[in-house]
C-alpha cells in the first residue's frame, strides 16, 4: 500500500499548472533595490523635474513676450519634457502612484471640447485627467491657430506638471527611498513585486496598447489615427515610443536588473536563458519601429501592417515578461484589466 503513496502528488498536481520552483531568497534583492532607486528611478525623477521646470520657465517667458522664437523654445522644451516622462513612467510605485502621475500627465486623446470650454477646470479632479498634462499641451501648442491665445492655460498646465513632478521627487528623496530599499522581501507589497508590477503593467498597457495597439486598431475595427500619442505635434509619436522602449530594455538589462536576477536564478526557456529571449524581443521591436513613420497617426493610415508587426513583436514580450518572468520570480500580477462598467 505504501508504495502507492508516490501517486499522491500526481493526484494533487492533476488540475494545477506546473509551479515555479526557484529559490528567490538566494538573490540579494536589497542591493538590487538600492541600485534601482539610486541609479534608475531617482535620476529619472531628477531629469524629469528639471525638464518640467525648464518647460514651465519657457512658457512663462512666452507669456511675457509671445514671439515666434519664444514659442519655438516652448515647443522644444515640451518635446524634451515629454521624452523625459517616458523614462519615468514605467516606475510608478510609492509617491508616483499616490499622486497618479500616469493618469494626470499622459491620458490621451485629450478631450478637446472640454479643454477649450473649461480652461479654468479644477485639475485635481479625477474627471479632469483628460484635459491636462502633455496631451493637453500638445493640442494647445500644435493644434490651435495661435497658441498665444492660450498662454494662461499653458501656464496652468505646466505649473501643474511641475508641481506633481516636484512633489513626487521630494517624497522619493526625503522619505520614500529608505522605505523602498528596506522593503526587500517578496510579498505582494514588497518593493520588488510592486516595481516589477508597475513595469509590466506599463509595458502592456501604456507601451504596447496605448502607443501602438490602440492606434493600430488591434482592439477595435480598424486603425484609429486620432488615438496616437502626441497627435498634434505629429512627428513625435515614434520618438516617444522608442524612448519608452529604451527605458524598458535599459531597466531590464541594468547592471543590477531583472536580467541579472533571472540569470542568477538560472531561469531558462526552451534551452535559452529567459533573459536572452526577452532581450532579443526588445531588439526586434526596436528594429521594427525604426522602419515606421515618425508620426504613428500617418503610419496607421498609410501602412497599418507595419504597425501591427510592431504590436506583435511587443506582444511576444508581454508573454515572456508577464507570464514566464513573473512566474520564475514568484511575483503575482497585482493589476487587472479595467472592468468596463
Amino acid at each position, binding site marked *: *500500500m505504501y508504495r*502507492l503513496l508516490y*501517486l499522491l502528488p500526481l493526484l494533487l498536481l492533476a488540475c494545477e499548472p506546473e509551479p515555479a520552483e526557484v529559490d528567490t531568497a538566494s538573490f540579494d534583492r536589497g542591493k538590487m533595490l538600492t541600485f534601482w532607486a539610486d541609479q534608475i528611478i531617482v535620476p529619472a525623477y531628477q531629469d524629469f523635474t528639471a525638464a518640467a521646470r525648464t518647460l514651465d520657465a519657457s512658457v512663462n517667458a512666452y507669456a511675457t513676450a509671445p514671439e515666434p522664437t519664444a514659442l519655438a523654445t516652448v515647443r522644444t522644451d515640451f518635446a524634451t519634457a515629454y521624452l523625459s516622462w517616458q523614462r519615468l513612467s514605467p516606475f510608478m510605485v510609492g509617491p508616483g*502612484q499616490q499622486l497618479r502621475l500616469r*493618469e494626470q500627465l499622459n*491620458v490621451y486623446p485629450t478631450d478637446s471640447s472640454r479643454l477649450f470650454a473649461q480652461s479654468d477646470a479644477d485639475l485635481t*479632479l479625477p474627471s479632469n485627467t483628460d484635459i491636462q498634462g502633455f496631451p493637453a499641451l500638445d493640442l494647445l501648442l500644435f493644434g490651435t491657430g495661435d497658441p498665444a491665445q492660450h498662454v494662461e492655460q499653458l501656464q496652468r498646465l505646466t505649473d501643474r506638471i511641475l508641481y506633481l513632478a516636484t512633489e513626487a521627487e521630494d517624497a522619493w528623496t526625503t522619505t520614500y527611498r529608505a522605505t523602498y530599499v528596506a522593503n526587500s522581501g517578496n510579498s505582494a507589497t514588497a518593493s520588488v513585486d510592486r516595481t516589477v508590477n508597475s513595469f509590466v503593467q506599463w509595458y502592456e498597457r501604456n507601451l504596447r496598447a496605448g502607443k501602438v495597439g490602440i492606434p493600430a486598431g488591434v482592439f477595435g475595427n480598424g486603425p484609429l489615427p486620432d488615438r496616437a500619442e502626441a497627435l498634434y505635434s505629429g512627428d513625435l509619436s515614434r520618438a516617444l515610443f522608442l524612448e519608452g522602449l529604451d527605458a524598458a530594455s535599459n531597466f531590464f538589462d541594468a547592471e543590477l536588473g531583472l536580467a541579472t536576477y533571472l540569470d542568477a536564478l538560472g531561469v531558462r526557456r526552451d534551452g535559452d536563458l529567459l533573459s536572452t529571449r526577452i532581450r532579443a524581443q526588445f531588439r526586434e521591436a526596436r528594429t521594427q519601429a525604426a522602419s515606421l513613420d515618425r508620426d504613428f497617426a500617418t503610419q496607421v493610415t498609410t501602412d497599418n501592417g507595419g504597425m501591427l508587426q510592431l504590436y506583435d513583436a511587443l506582444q511576444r514580450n508581454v508573454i515572456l515578461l508577464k507570464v514566464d518572468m513573473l512566474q520564475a520570480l514568484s511575483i503575482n500580477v497585482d493589476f487587472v484589466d*479595467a472592468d468596463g462598467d
Partner: protein
Amino acid sequence: MIRTLPFLLLLGLLLTACQDDDDLPEPVLELPATYTFERAGMSTVSFDGQTTRIAMAEALVAALLDTTRSESDLLAMFRNAGPNGEDVSPFVDAALNASDKSLRSKVAASADYFSANATDATAIRTTFDSYPRRQASEVYPAWNTVAQAGQAGQVADGTSTRYVNAGGLEYNQAFAKSLLGALMLDQTLNNYLSPSVLDEARNRENQSAGVTEDGAAYTTMEHKWDEAYGYVFGASPTPATPLTSLGDDDSFLNEYLDRVDQDDDFSGIAEDVFRAFLRGRAAIVADDFTERDQQANRIQELLSRVIAVRATFYLARGSTALESANGPSAGFHALSEAYGFVYSLQFTRDPATGAPYFSRAEVGTMLDSLYGDYPTGFWAVEPATVRELGQQIADRFAFSYTAAAN
C-alpha cells in the same frame, strides 16, 4: 488482484479528478440544436416583457450618471409611472414609454419568495427607491468635488472616475447589481422556474392537450419557461443562439454569466445554463415534468453560483485595492459592485432546500460588516473584514476563494 485494487481506485480518482461530476447518462429527449420551438410552423418562444425590462433597467442605470436628470425623472423610470400611478414618458426610447411594463413592480415579486411576504418585499422596494433619490440629492450636488471620508464626490479608479456617496458607495452600482438579484434572478429562479408557477391552475393539463393561450402559439407553461429564459438571454440579438454574443447583451445576468464563464475555474457554466434551459423546454414539450424540474434545479444552482462567484470576486478585488498606494478609494468601485452582489444573494435559491443560500438576515449582517457598521462606510472597513466576507460566501457555495478571486 487484491493488492492492485487500491491502485485501480486511485487511478480512477485520478482520471475523474478534473471532470465535471454531472456527466450522467441522460434520458433520450429530442433536443433542437438551438432555442427554437414551434407549433404548427409558428414559433412558440416569446419573452418581449423581459427584453423590455432589461432595456428599461439599462436606461435607468445610465441615467443615474446623468446629472441633468431629476430625482422624479429617475423614480419615474423605475416605476414607468408617476407618483400617483399616472402615465409618464421618462425614457428616451418611445417604445419603453409606451410599454405598460415596469421595473419596480417586479422587484422582490416572485411567487415563491414574496407572494406571502409583503413585509420584506416592501422593505426591498423602499431600498431600491432610495438609490435614485439619494443619487440625485447627495451625489449630483457633489459631482465636481473630490470625495473624502464622510463627503460625497468623485474618486479615481485608474483612469476612470467614479461618483460615490459620503461612505464611498456608488449608488448606481449598488442599484444595478441589486436589481440583477431582486428582479432578474428572483423572477427567473423563484417565479418562472418554480413548479408553483409552471404548474399553476390547469397548466399541466393544457400542456398535455396542447391548449395554447388566446391568440398565441404557446401554452402557458411554455411561455413561463421562456420568460425565465428571457431574463438571462432576452437582450441577445440572436436569442436562439445566445452564447455567441454572451456578455455583450446586457449589464445584468447575461454579462455576469459571461464574466464567470471567462474565469478558467468556472468555464463551461454558460453552456451548462443554456443546455439546461434547452432541455427543460424540450421536456415541457415532451410532457416530462420530472425532467423539467431537474433542469430548473440545475439552473437555480448555476445562476445562484454566478452571483456568489461575482460577489467573492469583487470582495477580493476590493480588499486588495483598499491597500494600494492610491489609498482606500481605489477599492470603492469593486466594493460598490460587491455590495450589490452580496445584496443579491438573498434572491439565490438552493434547489435542495428551495431557500436562498444566504437568508435576508444573513445578507443584512454581511452588508453591515462591509459598509453599514461604520459612520464613513468603505473609508473605514478593514481589508481583512472584506476578505472574510468573501471567504464566507466561497465556503457556503463550496468553491475556493482563490478560484473566484483571480
